[in-house]
């Protein structure tokens, strides 16, 4: 474009293909951020992603790094196996809330407690996206899902789990942050948090996780724009944003 300079474009490591995500889905935004951070940190050669069973199961089609698919919930165990064999790689799992906070609870907690030098990108959209919108451990009280037709009942189903806060007492966790991708401002903050998490790993400080509130318009049965509003008004009060833990380690 004559007289014009490109200031934003598609990141280098986001493959030039259409994705399968629903319109307005937060996963696609998060994919882009990962591609950007990987480019900026120049770690494409040594990054390994472990995509989940969940809507992001096909992440290998989109982000241009090596990947190994994990069984549902076992991402951090797989990452542990890989990282222990390849300590100089940047190994990260990508997990949904069902994957991470329900079926994968034990693996997550023990990986975090061991302080595995891995990073978890935790996409909290409050539902099981891929399987069609069932209750997730992070579903809000009162939220209707296909398995809570009358809304999540805190008495029978329990309240939503706040994973960042929950993990923070564990010594092994070095960086824990909750962000969101419902507005440009929050997207930029998310990117920063992802970068910090990777950096934490590269400094070998311990386990790092970024929990990202992410819109699932299809299963929330809201428009993309209303989904962003729901994050702002419905979710953030329950899941406050910010760095939940950042361990200060002496420079070594």
């Amino acid at each position, binding site marked *: 474009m004559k007289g014009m300079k490109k200031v934003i474009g598609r990141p280098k490591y986001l493959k030039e293909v259409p994705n399968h995500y629903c319109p307005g889905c937060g996963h696609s935004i998060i994919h882009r951020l990962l591609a950007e951070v990987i480019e900026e940190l120049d770690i494409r050669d040594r990054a390994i992603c472990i995509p989940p069973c969940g809507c992001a*199961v096909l992440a290998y089609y989109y982000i241009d790094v090596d990947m190994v698919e994990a069984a549902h919930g076992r991402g951090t165990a797989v990452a542990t196996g890989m990282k222990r064999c390849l300590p100089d790689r940047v190994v990260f799992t990508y997990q949904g809330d069902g994957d991470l906070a329900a079926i994968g609870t034990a693996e997550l907690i023990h990986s975090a407690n061991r302080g595995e030098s891995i990073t978890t990108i935790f996409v909290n959209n409050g539902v099981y996206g*891929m*399987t069609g919108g069932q209750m997730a451990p992070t579903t809000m009280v009162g939220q209707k899902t296909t398995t809570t037709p009358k809304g999540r009942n805190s008495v029978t189903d329990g309240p939503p789990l706040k994973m960042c806060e929950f993990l923070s007492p564990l010594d092994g966790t070095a960086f824990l942050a909750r962000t969101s991708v419902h507005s440009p401002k929050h997207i930029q903050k998310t990117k920063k948090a992802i970068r910090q998490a990777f950096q934490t790993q590269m400094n070998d400080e311990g386990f790092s996780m970024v929990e990202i509130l992410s819109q699932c318009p299809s299963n929330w049965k809201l428009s993309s724009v209303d989904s962003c509003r729901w994050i702002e008004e419905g979710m953030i009060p329950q899941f406050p944003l910010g760095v939940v833990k950042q361990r200060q380690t002496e420079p070594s």
Partner: protein
Amino acid sequence: MIHKAIIAGFGGQGILMMGVTLANAAMREDKQVTYLPTYGAEVRGGTANCTVSVGDEEIASPIASNPDYLVVMNAPSLHKFQSILRKGGHCLVNTSLVHEKSIRQDVKVYEIAASEMAEELGDLRAANMIVLGSFLKISSMVKPETVLEIVDETFRRKSPEVMERNKEALWAGYRFFE
């Protein structure tokens, strides 16, 4: 004899509803019937389709690999399914959303601008009922009266207005090919 129809379109077009209505009518007529939707792919896509099989003998497979009828409500569906329609089969096309022509010469094609017609009727969402009406005309899987009965029962409880509008749409589509 068993007849099979594939109905295909977007997610929000009421495709599955058409199929279920048809299947219910067939059951009411004491015919053998199966209904099969494409199901909840673990990965989302924009399309929906279903297969209805109706006959007077046990239906082996609910899948139609060679359907007698094809109802297409949008362009991708035409691309996807036209090749498997049986020779001499019937293809009903909603031309409001499908602008291309079928490339096959060996099938009968019926065209109806259902969305426009629905708009005229004052409810864009009734397009599926219009097409269903047309389908009842060009096929003979079930009697239109039975479908009316089913529509009546389905919507009466919800809203008599919607029921009336749907019935109207159904007849409009039926008459279109008279």
